[in-house]
């Protein structure tokens, strides 16, 4: 009984928030910039959930998120430009290729511990960037300009930001639900025990290689999906802007800030850090001048030093304390 009541309570709130999010764009029709910020929040939310899966749950610190993002973006864009293929199909191709590469990469590197793995993924992403920069076939440094076909559902391209808002919101919801499902499932439990103590998990009979690889592949798939959609939004991709390690870094910072290995953590992190960054960039001196990164750095240090479990934990404790206060 109690469980169902809890779920109903929580569910009610989630439902209300969802309605609010669905209606929000109508009030923001004249504020495309705010819509853009919302879209960026959804983008990073999804990417952060993807990272949460491999890093927060399975405990493998990957810096390859942005590489898979780029693989998704490039795959679907190439298919669009050269085969006139709708991105709705292109995105599956992107996901498939990203997952294949994740499989190949992961099977070779996932046995590495902690920072070794982290650094290896950084190296992989850099290699990818350098190859793309020099490979004429994918546009090299010219990048790829998407042919302008808006408005078109078939080509996933619009002049207005509204459709993109809803699409990215959907992706954000899907990734969060995915993480939620995993969090509550046996697989999620396996991930977490691997994170806690990998050798112990092996001894308990959990096939750690399999599960780590699984997390890595799913994570890559989500990133590729976001990549494809983002290319459709931004209409121009090039190695320097697409394969940027700051993207992966931001994901990690978002998850850490919000709460590692929780469902709500990345949501909180993205909702706070992304608008904060944008806001700082606009308000502080003709374009930011790096203040947004300084603020990120400070926030992260503060969170790590004082509440490493993230903002979500702060809120939970607040709630508990308040409840305690009322009981006593």
């Amino acid at each position, binding site marked *: 009984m109690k469980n169902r009541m809890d779920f109903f309570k929580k569910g009610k*709130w989630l439902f209300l928030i969802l309605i609010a999010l669905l209606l929000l764009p109508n009030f923001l029709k004249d504020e495309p910039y705010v819509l853009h910020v919302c879209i960026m929040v959804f983008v990073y939310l999804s990417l952060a959930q993807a990272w949460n899966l491999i890093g927060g749950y399975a405990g493998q610190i990957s810096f390859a998120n942005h590489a898979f993002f780029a693989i998704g973006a490039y795959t679907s864009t190439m298919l669009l430009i050269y085969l006139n293929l709708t991105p709705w199909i292109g995105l599956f191709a992107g996901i498939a290729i990203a997952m294949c590469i994740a499989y190949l990469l992961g099977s070779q590197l996932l046995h590495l511990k902690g920072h070794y793995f982290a650094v290896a993924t950084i190296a992989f992403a850099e290699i990818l960037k350098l190859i793309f920069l020099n490979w004429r076939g994918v546009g090299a440094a010219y990048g790829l300009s998407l042919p302008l076909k*808006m408005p078109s559902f078939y080509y996933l391209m619009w002049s207005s930001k509204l459709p993109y808002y809803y699409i990215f919101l959907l992706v954000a919801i899907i990734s969060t639900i995915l993480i939620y499902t995993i969090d509550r499932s046996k697989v999620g439990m396996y991930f977490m025990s691997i994170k806690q103590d990998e050798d112990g998990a092996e001894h308990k009979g959990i096939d750690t290689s399999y599960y780590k690889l699984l997390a890595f592949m799913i994570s890559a798939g989500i990133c590729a999906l976001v990549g494809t959609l983002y290319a459709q939004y931004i209409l121009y991709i090039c190695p320097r802007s697409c394969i940027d390690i700051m993207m992966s870094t931001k994901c990690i910072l978002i998850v850490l800030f919000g709460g590692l290995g929780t469902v709500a953590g990345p949501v909180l992190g993205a909702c706070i850090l992304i*608008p*904060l960054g*944008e806001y700082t960039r606009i308000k502080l001196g003709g374009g930011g001048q*790096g203040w947004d990164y300084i603020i990120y750095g400070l926030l992260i240090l503060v969170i790590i030093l004082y509440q490493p479990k993230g903002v979500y934990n702060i809120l939970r404790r607040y*709630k508990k304390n*308040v409840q305690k206060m*009322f009981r006593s």
Partner: protein
Amino acid sequence: MKNLKKEIGVSIVLILLSSVLLAGCISEKEEEVKEIKIGCIWPLTGDLAAYGAANKRALELATDIINNKYPDLNLPLAASEGLPNLGGAKIKLVWGDSRGTPEEGRSAAEYLITNEEVIALLGCYQSAVTETASLPAETYGIPFLNPDSSSPTLTERGYKWFWRCTPKAIDWTRNALEFYTDINEKFDANLHTYGIFNEDTLWGVESGDWLEYWADEFGFEVIERVQYSHETPDLSAEVLRMKQANPDLVHIAGYISDSILYVKTMKENNWLPKMVMSGEMIQMSDFLDTLGADGNYFCLTILFPQDLVTTKALTVKLNEMMDERYGKTFDDPSARAFTGLFVLADAINRAGSTDPEKINAAFAETNIPGEKMILPWTAIQFDEKHQLKAGGYVIQQIQNGEYYTVWPWELATRDIIWPMPSWDER
């Protein structure tokens, strides 16, 4: 029940918090003022910020001239206060920082269009940034004038709202090869092999491609082409490679800091081909400040040759004004940005309105004569692809720490020193 209330409380606080943060991004709507807002997008931060800073100075000066009475300056709209056909409305510049990346450039463009409601955009120096920043302009129907990016692709896209009042890479690369052909004739130099260093963004790659194209057309052979990243800390491998190939001529399609590093590295390796040419970026003061006498004898393709334009009274006057106010004079990129604002203001004025369609139409009729600009061109007119019609490059050479025009021969203020003396000979 009490728990529920607390949950409500916390959720509301959370939602409020996010909304407040989001709302911070919504700018306050200003009241309608009699001003013409123009969005300017350049790298104000990032490693190319020096260009942004120079352009900012130039544009502030231009704005001042347009908005106030300067009857003795023969520039469009200088004699009047503001734009006469719009009741004296004044230009207001609104700045966006591209941070030197295409993404930020595009973000800045969108923000300027949607939040600041600028009626036109100006920018962005780097071709890759101009490419993406012009996308929102095209989508929202806002005129975008580009005074300083040379990638030919920009006007090949067939955009309706994009205009470019600077020559393309096709032109300066061609001028460079014409120059070498003339050298061959004049000095019986027998130049044949060509080497290219190009940086790895849109600009560098396209420049390299066009150099190859024209080299081929003019009968030269490109024997080595090295692509590099302009952030790389060390160019030894690149220079070694080129030294090994040992072409007669080398071209550096890069930015200021890599150009400087190349010169230093070439000196370290005690190697120089018969001529090294670069672009207008080595006109920036950093080049000679850092290299001193080592910078001598390098050639550059340039649109704003200081020595030629100082024969133009207008330019002398404006250089003085710049120097007075900022302690710096015009360089090539800022001179073009400066001119860009006048072209834009002129079009808006002729349109007589802030209606984008009218302004866009007015662009097509642009015809600013040579004597009304600080650049040494014959006129500013646009062709059917929205590309500047005239405007040629000259070649300068650095001699004794000064920049002298050496080609075309009829415009030269000094004779070229040919070939470049090697490091030992200096």
